[in-house]
């Protein structure tokens, strides 16, 4: 048995400790925000936060999590009451097909938990491990800039103003 804390709630799963966290989230805990993209840590669709740090859940053995807290997009807000990162993504209409967006949002959340005043370069570097095939990067970056402002900070040398 493996004990986890996911989105603030305790969970107990009966799986092999080498099982990727992604499978546990989707199959055992029925949290479907994190997506299976490549399964190789190359695309970022499966990104979740483990103790505030973005990780590829497809390469995260569930047995390695220990007491660290897992956060998925479900933990950032609800459809009725979206969190500020989610609201920023909605405002900028950052999703095209949407498959990468949960990874993008958790990655943005991880960045903003570290600092609400990143540089443009730091923001882009932080977001780079997540890929978007539709090409909505400019909107995604706008959404992250907006979310930083909503958190009381802002990208210090923003390439575009938040309007």
């Amino acid at each position: 048995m493996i004990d986890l804390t996911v989105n603030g709630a305790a969970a107990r799963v009966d799986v092999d400790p080498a099982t990727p966290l992604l499978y546990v989230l989707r199959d055992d805990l029925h949290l479907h925000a994190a997506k299976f993209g490549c399964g190789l840590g190359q695309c970022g669709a499966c990104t979740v936060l483990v103790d505030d740090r973005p990780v590829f859940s497809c390469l995260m053995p569930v047995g390695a999590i220990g007491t660290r807290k897992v956060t998925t997009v479900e933990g950032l807000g609800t459809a009725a009451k979206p969190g500020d990162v989610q609201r920023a993504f909605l405002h900028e209409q950052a999703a095209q097909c949407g498959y990468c967006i949960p990874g993008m949002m958790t990655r943005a959340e991880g960045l903003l938990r570290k600092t609400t005043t990143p540089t443009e370069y730091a923001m882009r570097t932080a977001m780079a491990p997540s890929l978007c095939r539709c090409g909505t990067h400019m909107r995604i970056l706008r959404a992250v800039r907006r979310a930083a402002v909503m958190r009381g900070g802002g990208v210090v040398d923003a390439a575009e103003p938040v309007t």
Partner: protein
Amino acid sequence: MSRSGITRTVIWAAIALCVGIVVFAIIAYRPAIAAVTRPDPRLFDAALVARGANLARLGNCVSCHQAAGERPYAGGYPIKTPFGTVYGSNITPDPATGIGEWSPAAFNRAMREGVGRDGSHLYPAFPYTHYANVTDSDLGALYAFLMTRPAVRAVPPANTMIPPLGFRPLLAGWKLLFLRPQPMASDPRQSAAWNRGRYIGETLAHCTACHSPRGLLQQEKRGAEAYDGGWSGGWYAPPINARSPAVRAWTVDRLDAYFRTGLSTAHAAAAGPMGPVTYNLARAAPADVRALATYYAWQMREAPAARVEPPLPDRRASASQRHPVGARLYEGACAVCHEPGAAMMVAGRPVLPLGTPLHEDNPRDTIQIILQGLRPPVSARGPYMPAFADALDDRQVAEIVAYLQVRHGSGPAWKDLEKDVAKAREEGE
């Protein structure tokens, strides 16, 4: 001793001290070289600028003269030394903050003697010990290249040297000991490519800056210890001489491919500080890169793998038995790409036992690759490996490393792995 005897001793000591200070001042003093008006970039010959661009790539200048996310050659990259952090200077032609006011004579003096235009001694983190043998014509080409870059107004952060090393005249003493340029005559017994490779490798490319061990005062060890392996940015730069731990021979063709693509299919991808080196070599003149490969294949001609390429062990069962925790972590985090038959293996990436890190005499590179992953060294096409620094803790990384060494590595078991993971995190960049 009588009172007058003590007085006499004190007087003589004072005189000796004064003479010492004067002699030191004479040795350390370098005059400023008069400022010039920034040369008009349009006046430089395009072919000369192109030659300088190639030399700058071979020399990997931009790695230290560009901070992350900032403009090329504008400086600001931190070089951590045991004596403090030195920041790469701005070598764009901005007159106020770069080298726009430097004449060719001032530039050449900086390159060969490590003295700035204003006469101040430069820290040897700038590898001027290598540049004495750069030809006048190559220095002229580099000057033309730098003077035609966009001028960037940028002042790098102030160096943070431990006292009293912030006092630059002391560097004159370091230079007396270690700035000993040896003339480099071409070796008629060797090919033109070998001689060209030696010239580039020993001068502008300054390969020993990372691949040779350093002494107490951070001088590179020479002679028999040259290329015996060294340290760079928290990574280990393995020996590239007869002590190369690689398990496949570094032939001219393999080195050439590694330099130009950032990947040797018989070894591994360029990782850590070697990534940017291959990025630049991939954009340098192919004949020069081939020459470098010729020279360094020769340096490693007596390495074990050059004689016999050993079989690649896979001690899977015993590794799992000895490190069961590491085995489970490997299975969940690594196997999906690295296990025989996995997607990345089918795509032609080298198998783990081919990688030199598992055969080095310390675990640092294996640890850093797990922590930091691999950024595609040469182009966005890869190879790429995600970083595990945020996913795994020190003990977990140590378990995987211990498992991998038993399964695929060689040499005596690495010790104190968990401590080295913590150190790798601290020193890594």
